[in-house]
């Protein structure tokens, strides 16, 4: 294709040609289709034989061939050119157009170019917001002296392309990363009666910020709850996938049993063995099923904020607070927080307290003051957490991901206990712990407490076994104290199937033997078992 006869383009023709790479028909294409279509049009408007787009892989600082016309092998072979090397690498490094009049091993890194007989090359950088995101180049198989106005035209096309590619790539990355991220956050928080719990996850405002923050909470067979909050350094899918691995590993580590210290030590070993040196900070806490104790271990994570009647304060993280992989497992230290009525513990990732141009100390102090103001007021905790986050980071979306998790105990001792829990065998321990905690708050004598807990557990087991079909239902638990009498009712809304098994008969026998009164009230709407015991002072 000889272009010697082409005269300088008039401005209207330039506009018409640019129009062809920015028309609305391109707006709905996927990134790949968009690249392909742009190259076809570029080839046409500049009357060249080859056109290619390479995008920057930031992690490797290499340009990767993403689309090509006339030199499709470039993409098929996954050509990668280090920034600064060869033709494309030079364009990216110097951020300006490059024209090659001689195409051979001395001028280009990629042999495909001269193997295909390309004689002249023109390339321009793809720049978005001042940042090089790739390179677009065109080539001819006959010698051609690219004119300045052609260079300008390709640069205009490249600018348009860069914006479109960038918007779509980041949009897509963002959608995928956020979706991926969210699959690892718990859909439903575990339930412990008497515990107030609420969480928030705010993805970063910019697509590049989304990534490695997570929180997790689940109960163990013992009824104790494990809370995890963590942060994988870096952003995007790579950080999110490390986060996913750590989250699942921690669930497995926690299920093996043991203290937060042992769980973190296992996570440390896991990360040392399987990790690629990613920077991971995390905090593993265990809230006892009776809600009285929260103990935690931090590995490089910001300190939890504790708010109670005495005010808001941070808990020291122990003698070593190194991120995973940077510390000896023996250096981790467990901290214990007694959880009285009205005590809140806030776990968070550093996005909450880090602000550009501000020291971490100032950020932490801002959080402490906000926590003191918001959490000691008697707002419902969900609103309180939202208000707290708003006060700390403002109304705009954060620049980095933010994950926060708030747990707390009701402000006062409840004279009445009332809750409902999923009718599953694993809920029985939670029913027992809730009753024990409630009765011991009310100073019910130990033997009465033990008998009532046993009877209620049997009644609840009956609900699990008999009240519902496999689609399940709820166990409702109500406890009341009147003078010298304590009364607990266990209710369901199911239609009982026959209680023929011997252990269920034994359950009723146990209930009757240890209680002063057991009344079973069955109706089509459900069954209510009322158990009463005398409380001797």
């Amino acid at each position, binding site marked *: 294709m000889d272009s010697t006869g082409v005269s300088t383009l008039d401005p209207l023709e330039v506009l018409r040609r640019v129009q062809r790479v920015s028309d609305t028909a391109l707006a709905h294409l996927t990134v790949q289709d968009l690249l392909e279509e742009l190259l076809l049009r570029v080839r046409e408007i500049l009357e060249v034989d080859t056109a290619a787009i390479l995008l920057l892989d930031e992690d490797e600082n290499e340009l990767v061939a993403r689309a090509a016309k006339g030199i499709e092998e470039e993409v098929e072979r996954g050509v990668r050119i280090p920034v600064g090397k060869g033709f494309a690498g030079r364009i990216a490094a110097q951020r300006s157009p490059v024209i090659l009049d001689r195409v051979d091993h001395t001028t280009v890194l990629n042999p495909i170019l001269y193997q295909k007989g390309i004689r002249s090359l023109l390339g321009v950088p793809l720049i978005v917001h001042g940042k090089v995101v790739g390179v677009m180049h065109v080539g001819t198989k006959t010698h051609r002296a690219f004119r300045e106005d052609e260079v300008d035209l390709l640069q205009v096309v490249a600018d348009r392309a860069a914006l479109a590619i960038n918007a779509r790539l980041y949009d897509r990355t963002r959608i995928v990363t956020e979706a991926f991220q969210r699959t690892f956050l718990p859909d439903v928080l575990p339930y412990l009666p008497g515990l107030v719990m609420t969480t928030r996850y705010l993805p970063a405002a910019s697509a590049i910020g989304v990534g490695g923050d997570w929180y997790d909470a689940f109960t*163990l*067979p*013992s*009824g*104790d709850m494990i809370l995890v909050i963590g942060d994988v350094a870096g952003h995007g899918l790579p950080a999110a996938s490390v986060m996913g691995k750590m989250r699942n590993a921690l669930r497995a580590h*926690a*299920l*093996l*049993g*043991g*203290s937060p210290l042992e769980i973190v030590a296992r996570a440390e070993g896991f990360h040392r063995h399987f990790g690629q040196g990613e920077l991971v900070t995390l905090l593993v806490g*265990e809230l006892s099923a009776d809600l009285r104790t929260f103990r935690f271990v931090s590995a490089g994570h910001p300190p939890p904020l504790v708010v109670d009647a005495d005010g808001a304060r941070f808990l020291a993280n122990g003698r070593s607070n190194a991120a995973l992989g940077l510390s000896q497992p023996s250096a981790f230290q467990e901290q214990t927080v007694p959880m009285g009525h009205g005590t809140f513990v806030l776990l968070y990732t550093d996005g909450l307290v880090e602000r550009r141009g501000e020291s971490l100390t100032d950020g932490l102090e801002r959080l402490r003051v906000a926590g003191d103001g918001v959490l000691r007021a008697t707002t419902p905790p969900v609103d309180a957490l939202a208000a707290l986050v708003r006060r700390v980071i403002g109304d705009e979306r954060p620049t980095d991901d933010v994950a926060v998790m708030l747990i707390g105990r009701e402000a006062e001792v409840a004279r009445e206990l009332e809750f409902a829990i999923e009718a599953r*065998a*694993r809920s*029985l*321990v939670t029913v*027992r712990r809730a009753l024990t905690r409630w009765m011991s708050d009310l100073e019910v004598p130990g033997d009465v407490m*033990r008998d009532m*807990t*046993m009877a209620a*557990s*049997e009644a609840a*087991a009956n609900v*699990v*076994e008999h009240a519902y079909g496999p689609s399940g239902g709820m166990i409702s638990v109500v406890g009341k104290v009147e003078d010298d009498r304590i009364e607990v009712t266990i209710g369901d809304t199911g239609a009982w199937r026959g209680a023929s*098994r*011997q*252990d*269920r008969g*034994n*359950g009723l*026998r*146990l209930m009757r*033997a*240890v209680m002063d009164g057991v009344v079973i009230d069955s109706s089509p709407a459900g069954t209510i078992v009322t158990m009463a015991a005398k409380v001797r002072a």
Partner: protein
Amino acid sequence: MTGQLGNVELQREERVALAVLSGEIDMSNATSVRHQIAEFVTPDDDAVVVDLSELEFIDSAGLHSLVELGNLLSERRQQLFLSTPSGSHVERALEIVGMRNSVPVHPSRDEALEAARASAVERRPVEPTDG
């Protein structure tokens, strides 16, 4: 160990399989506990002792799984012995459901082990059976 609801520690003392239960046994882990013990017992064991002294809680499902274990063992001419201190809540539960009459209960692990060894003398060799 924290995290688990109940724990089973298994050991063997002179042809007597010993299972020491701790923590809590309820409907959620009763079957698993029974399986863990049953899988540990071999045809060479003359008897099985399940020590309930360290148990903090056991419900009727847990007691029932012990009855079932006893039934499985008796088909193999292996006897089940339980131990729990006199006056303990576990002993009271055994009493209420009438298990004291069907399974020998001893106030300590050592006494249960001794009784188990004594029972071995009476045990005749049997062919291993399925199930």
